[in-house]
């Protein structure tokens, strides 16, 4: 029972990340009709906003280690700690949450610049062209990050107060159901962002116009509404969602330049399984595949079907697409 509960939590947590990325992908595909392979790179860029903020906050006074003469080695103390003591240390400790605030305008600007500067020229081109150009852009972004930050992962810590684990089992009378605070926060964060995006699309006039545009772009345009401008903003919004997912994921997975690619393929699978263009489908499929992946890696399951944990997502995708070629929530 404990093991099952833990795997459900693992699946929800993993599914949250898949769903967030897939949500942005679906938004872009649904509005602009663009298959955006840069989306994983936006997730990674968000993570590196967190890395950059931490680097800025920890700009340090360097005291040279005189015992080392062959090269320069330093003991570093951040200026924030020197100037403001515990308050400075607390600011550094909270660098990941602080990064969320900073990432919003940065990712919005990146998204809009990307759409205006490159993507818009490919609206009327084949999907294959769109895939090639966005995949190429993802590689360029990755290489720029590698050139500036190196190829190794760069660890980011969650704030001290939430860096440990919570004994969930104690509350429900089970032993050994311990789960990290930050993963619980990530799950809650994912649900909030997903809820926020849905509320934005369903409860605002802007969202209503966007949904109408997704349904019938031409008619909305004929009504005198500048749908293109709104879709540009939607692209920026999708970039913000991906970026925030990346920022929040840094304490779970130390970021490197390739982390976006690791998530991209799975997220596309999530979109296809959920149904291309279906926002609800993307979210549902994200959580579904996350949970299935977690369960398939249980020893009891792997003893029956060895290696199932490595192929389960693809098997499920094949099975669903066989019976529902347009995905779980896709419209015929």
């Amino acid at each position, binding site marked *: 029972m404990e093991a099952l509960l*833990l795997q459900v939590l693992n699946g929800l947590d993993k599914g949250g990340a898949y769903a967030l990325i897939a949500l942005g992908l679906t938004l872009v595909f649904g509005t602009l009709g663009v298959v955006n392979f840069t989306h994983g790179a936006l997730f990674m860029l968000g993570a590196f906003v967190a890395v950059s903020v931490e680097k800025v906050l920890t700009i340090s006074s360097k005291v040279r280690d005189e015992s080392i003469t062959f090269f320069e080695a330093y003991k570093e103390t951040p200026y924030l700690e020197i100037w403001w003591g515990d308050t400075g240390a607390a600011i550094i400790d909270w660098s990941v949450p602080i990064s969320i605030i900073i990432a919003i305008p940065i990712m919005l600007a990146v998204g809009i610049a990307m759409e205006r500067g490159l993507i818009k020229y490919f609206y009327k081109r084949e999907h294959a062209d769109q895939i090639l150009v966005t995949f190429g852009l993802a590689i360029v972004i990755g290489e720029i990050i590698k050139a500036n930050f190196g190829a190794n992962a760069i660890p980011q810590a969650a704030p001290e107060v939430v860096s440990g*684990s919570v004994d969930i089992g104690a509350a429900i009378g089970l032993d050994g159901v311990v789960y*990290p605070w930050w993963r619980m926060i990530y799950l809650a964060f994912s649900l909030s962002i997903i809820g926020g995006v849905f509320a934005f699309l369903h409860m605002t006039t802007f969202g209503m116009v966007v949904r109408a545009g997704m349904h019938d772009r031409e008619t909305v345009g004929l009504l005198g509404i500048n749908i293109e401008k709104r879709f540009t903003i939607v692209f920026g919004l999708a970039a913000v969602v991906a970026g925030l997912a990346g920022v929040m994921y840094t304490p779970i997975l130390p970021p490197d330049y390739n982390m976006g690619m690791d998530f991209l393929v799975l997220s596309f699978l999530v979109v296809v399984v959920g149904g291309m263009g279906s926002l609800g489908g993307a979210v549902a499929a994200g959580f579904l595949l996350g949970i299935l992946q977690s369960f398939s890696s249980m020893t009891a399951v792997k003893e029956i079907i060895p290696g199932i944990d490595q192929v389960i997502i693809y098997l499920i995708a094949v099975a669903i697409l066989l019976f529902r070629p347009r995905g779980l929530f896709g419209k015929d």
Partner: protein
Amino acid sequence: MSNDSKKLTELSRRGFLKSTAAAAAVGAAPAMFVSNANAYVNAPKGKSVTLGFNVPQSGAYADEGADELRAYKLAVKHLNGEGDGGLMNTMKPMSLKGNGILGKKVEFATGDTQTKSDAARASAKRMIEKDGAVMISGGSSSGVAIAVQSLCQEAGVIFMAGLTHSNDTTGKDKRKHGFRHFFNTDMSGSALGPVLESEFGKERTAYHLTADYTWGWSQEGSIKNTTEGIGWQTAKAVRTPLGAGDFSQYITPVLNSGADVLVLNHYGKDMVNSLTQAVQFGLRDKNVNGKDFQIVVPLFSRLMAQGAGENIKGIYGTTNWNWSLKDAGSQAFVKSFGAEYGFPPSQAAHTCYVQTLLYANACELAGTFDPCGVIAALEGFKFDGMGNGPTEYRAEDHQCFKDVLVVQGNDNPSSQFDLLNVVQEVPRSQVEYSTTHLGGELGSCNNKA
């Protein structure tokens, strides 16, 4: 004219005609067929010799590959008599003269392994066939090393392995043309065992998470032998896909497994991620069976340790070499590398630099680049002053035998590079095994062009 003399004349005439025909045939044949008959692959003809450095320049191990390449460039510089000479000042015995190798200036070609066996073989093949490399060196993965070693055997060039830790490289997959200076998983296990016993006791239960490829299997087998040998139980050994990213689904079962030690048979990015996540799940704060829960990482790398940040502190593992060593060889290398690049070398850089010098020295000893001569010079070669104490290239398996370092993540680093404390330098005698222990056949020398 007698019959006898007539016969002799006829034979001589026939012999003369045969010889002339043979000479004409040889003269008419393309030059490559002539050289095939007389020389070995890529025999240097001009005033220079080319070495091929095959390292990961892209992918997850690109930083480690970049450090390997820095070391190779430094080695080439020193071999050509430039710079401060580095380990050529401390290596004993040494036949190098600082005038290249056998008087030929050392040049090099580079390849990108991408840490993929097929890409690594393709780049090695290109360096052998197009660039004329007489030796290939490098790599940051055992899968890659084994694949390239096999290619070099077939191609008839020497392979001086870079960072490869699986037993198989000099065990079941060893080759006559392959040589490894780096240590292996059995040595890690043998070195770690006594330290684990003295630090954590004899009554422990270990849970293994293992990268699902040749190195992971080798590491798991070696460390299990060691821990079970000191009386520990093994709760479970679970294979994890290479590059899994999120290991939460593999870590949560550890919580209720009854294990009080987690052994992470992971390297690089997998190690950084699994260790970070294991700490987040509170494993290091747990108390199981009345004992503090412990995590062990059998193979440490300083470059990778940076990625794990605070989580590496206090954790035990092994390493082939560390820049903080105080022997003359290590100091000479750190000084030379530090002056050139402004930071200390990694263990990967060290092993690659040493391998290049060892190859060059063997050519000088043999008086030829012919792989058969070089192999004979390397087999059983004993040397010192290269940072690992007295070392021997064992003739039977082409594995270097030397002391092994047991290290621990530094709790209180004095600088950004001071991540590992050397806990113990375990002597060669404690990590050595019999020549037949790991199986495999070297095969024979291949110097046919």
